[in-house]
């Protein structure tokens, strides 16, 4: 075990890393907490969308003629030029198809009729919070990407500031000294989830900072423009010049199934519909592959053009195209999603315990400590409040999210003593459960026979109840077995 001793960083390095780690952690904790918690929940965003807008008929298969009918009906509805016309196939997560173009989306029934406009403002609120922090998209995604990079920094400084990484790998002191408890929780969760933490931060930063990387490199490298970089990484568009005809979806589906019998259709895009440049892109997932999809290109009459080589091209292209599934846990089915939720909650807990450690180590109890704790428990409350405002009262969820978050955090800031503050936190947790319960039942009134709705509702309710359970006693029982 001399190797472990050799790998142990020096005391000076540990001290400096710890300082940098604490600095960065404290500075970004508020935003990191929002990103981690919302990210954990939006792992299930397709299911959330399905839950928010239940439809009577659900199906996993649609005929090519129904798809054609749906695309025609949708094109007629949009009275403006369309650049890309999307048809998204039904799948296990959302067993219903939809069409979209020019920021309009419609759900379809099994016969290809437009049923209802896609309208899931709470899910959009949650995904926008995770991806853009509700800021204008360009700046929002850069800030979130930057937070990903800061997380990478926190991982590096965290490892360097932990000299007993191996020795303490299984140490957990629960109860007793609060500082030790928070420290052990923070360290054990973070050390053992290090690969997850690093992969999620890196892919998040990669997605968020793609644009800014391109811009800077474009400016300093005269040999290539950012457009050329994008086409190098993701592939070029084909150049078509022929009279537009009705898309033969059946021919395209048949041809693709013949070429790749194991693929699952994901979505179909009619590019530049109605123009001489019209062609069709068919995105399909390949079994056991992390790439989001392979894209096969066809002429409108079903003749194959080429495919984008996302699955078998250069390693760089494959890696770039795999980041989405790795980041959101959309691979390997529901088990992977559940694992992402567990590890995501761990990431959230690491953020919270990190700040708690700073306060506890210095034995500080002031308004800032109460504000931090109040903020931590106000975020789930604000999410529940936004859900209720949107699903029950049809109001703006973003507005109610921030209003309730500001208000309940501000109340926490007013506390001066520990005991009433703790009672307030408990009230916040109960209030979150109450709001979730009300939302689930009042929204569900319209869908009493939708079994899936109630199963998912029960899961959401259970999740909201987790914080009011006494976790300490559970660990006590588990360790006593």
């Amino acid at each position, binding site marked *: 075990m001399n190797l472990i001793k050799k790998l142990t960083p020096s005391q000076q390095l540990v001290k400096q890393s710890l300082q940098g780690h604490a600095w*960065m952690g404290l500075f970004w904790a508020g935003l990191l907490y929002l990103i981690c918690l919302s990210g954990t929940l939006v792992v299930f965003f397709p299911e959330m969308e399905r839950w928010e807008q239940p439809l009577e008929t659900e199906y996993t298969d649609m005929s090519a003629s129904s798809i054609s009918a749906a695309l025609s009906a949708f094109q007629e509805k949009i009275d403006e030029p369309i650049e890309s016309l999307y048809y998204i196939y039904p799948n296990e997560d959302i067993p219903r198809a939809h069409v979209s173009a020019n920021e309009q989306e419609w759900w379809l029934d099994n016969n290809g009729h437009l049923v209802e406009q896609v309208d899931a403002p709470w899910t959009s609120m949650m995904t926008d919070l995770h991806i853009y922090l509700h800021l204008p998209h360009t700046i929002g995604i850069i800030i979130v990407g930057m937070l990903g990079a800061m*997380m990478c920094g926190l991982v*590096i400084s965290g490892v360097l500031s932990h000299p007993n990484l191996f020795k303490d790998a299984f140490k957990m002191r*629960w109860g007793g000294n609060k500082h030790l408890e928070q420290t052990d929780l923070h360290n054990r969760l973070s050390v053992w989830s290090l690969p*997850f933490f690093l992969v999620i931060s890196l892919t998040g930063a990669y997605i968020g900072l793609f644009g800014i990387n391109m811009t800077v490199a474009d400016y300093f490298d005269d040999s290539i423009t950012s457009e050329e970089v994008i086409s190098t990484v993701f592939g070029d568009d084909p150049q078509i010049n022929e009279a537009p005809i009705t898309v033969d979806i059946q021919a395209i589906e048949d041809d693709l199934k013949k070429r790749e019998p194991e693929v699952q259709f994901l979505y179909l895009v009619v590019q530049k519909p109605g123009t001489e440049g019209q062609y069709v892109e068919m995105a399909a997932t390949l079994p056991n592959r992390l790439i989001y999809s392979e894209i096969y290109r066809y002429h409108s009459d079903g003749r194959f053009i080429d495919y984008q080589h996302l699955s078998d091209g250069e390693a*760089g292209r494959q890696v770039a195209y795999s980041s989405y599934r790795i980041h959101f846990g959309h691979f390997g089915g529901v088990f992977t999603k559940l*694992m992402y939720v567990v590890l995501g909650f761990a990431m959230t807990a690491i953020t919270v315990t990190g700040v708690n450690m700073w306060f506890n180590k210095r034995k500080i109890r002031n308004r800032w400590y109460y504000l931090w704790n109040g903020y931590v428990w106000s975020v789930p409350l604000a999410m529940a409040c936004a859900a209720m405002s949107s699903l029950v009262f049809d109001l703006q969820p973003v507005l109610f999210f921030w209003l309730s978050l500001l208000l309940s955090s501000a109340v926490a800031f007013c506390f001066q003593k520990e005991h009433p503050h703790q009672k307030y936190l408990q009230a916040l947790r109960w209030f979150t459960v109450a709001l979730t319960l009300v939302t689930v039942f009042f929204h569900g009134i319209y869908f009493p026979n939708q079994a899936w709705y109630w199963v998912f509702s029960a899961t959401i309710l259970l999740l909201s109840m987790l914080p009011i359970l006494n976790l300490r006693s559970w660990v006590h029982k588990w360790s006593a077995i």
Partner: protein
Amino acid sequence: MVWHSLMAFVLPLGILCLVPYAWFQAQKHKRQALRWLWLGVSILALTVGFYLFQKHHGTEFSVFFVLFHVSWLSWLIIGRHAKVKSEKQPASYVSHGPKGRSFTYKFSVFLLAGTLALFSSILVSKAIAQSLVTELINQWATTLIIAPLLWGAWVTWLASDRIIYRPISAMILFTLLSWWYIT
């Protein structure tokens, strides 16, 4: 169906469970030989777990399954061996923390982190990628992956070093060198 799930998930998970358990056992023993033995068991379990996952889910999924599933499995073992004590009476608290560095200093670190460190990380990653990778497409993928890591590392250094000129000088030097190399 049950058999398939068992072989595809439950069995490899059960074997992966041995990874943290063997680590735990390795730590408990004082004798070096036993420690190495348990470490060997841990590596063997990792390999078998990976192999079983790979058989049903392919290599790509299995890499991440092995990396990520070990986390929560180890937490079960940690929870199992946690020392639970009753909560102590609250200690005497203070309302103010130690006086840290000035606001100006902190703000300048923040500004440097958002400008110089970002700028530097992109150019240095591009230069590293250009020097190590030949294919243009792979160069860009490498740049995009290294840049956030490097940015995080630069910012950590900025925030932790008592002499702030050290990271600043290093960043400027590496940025200029990278710029020269790229162009």
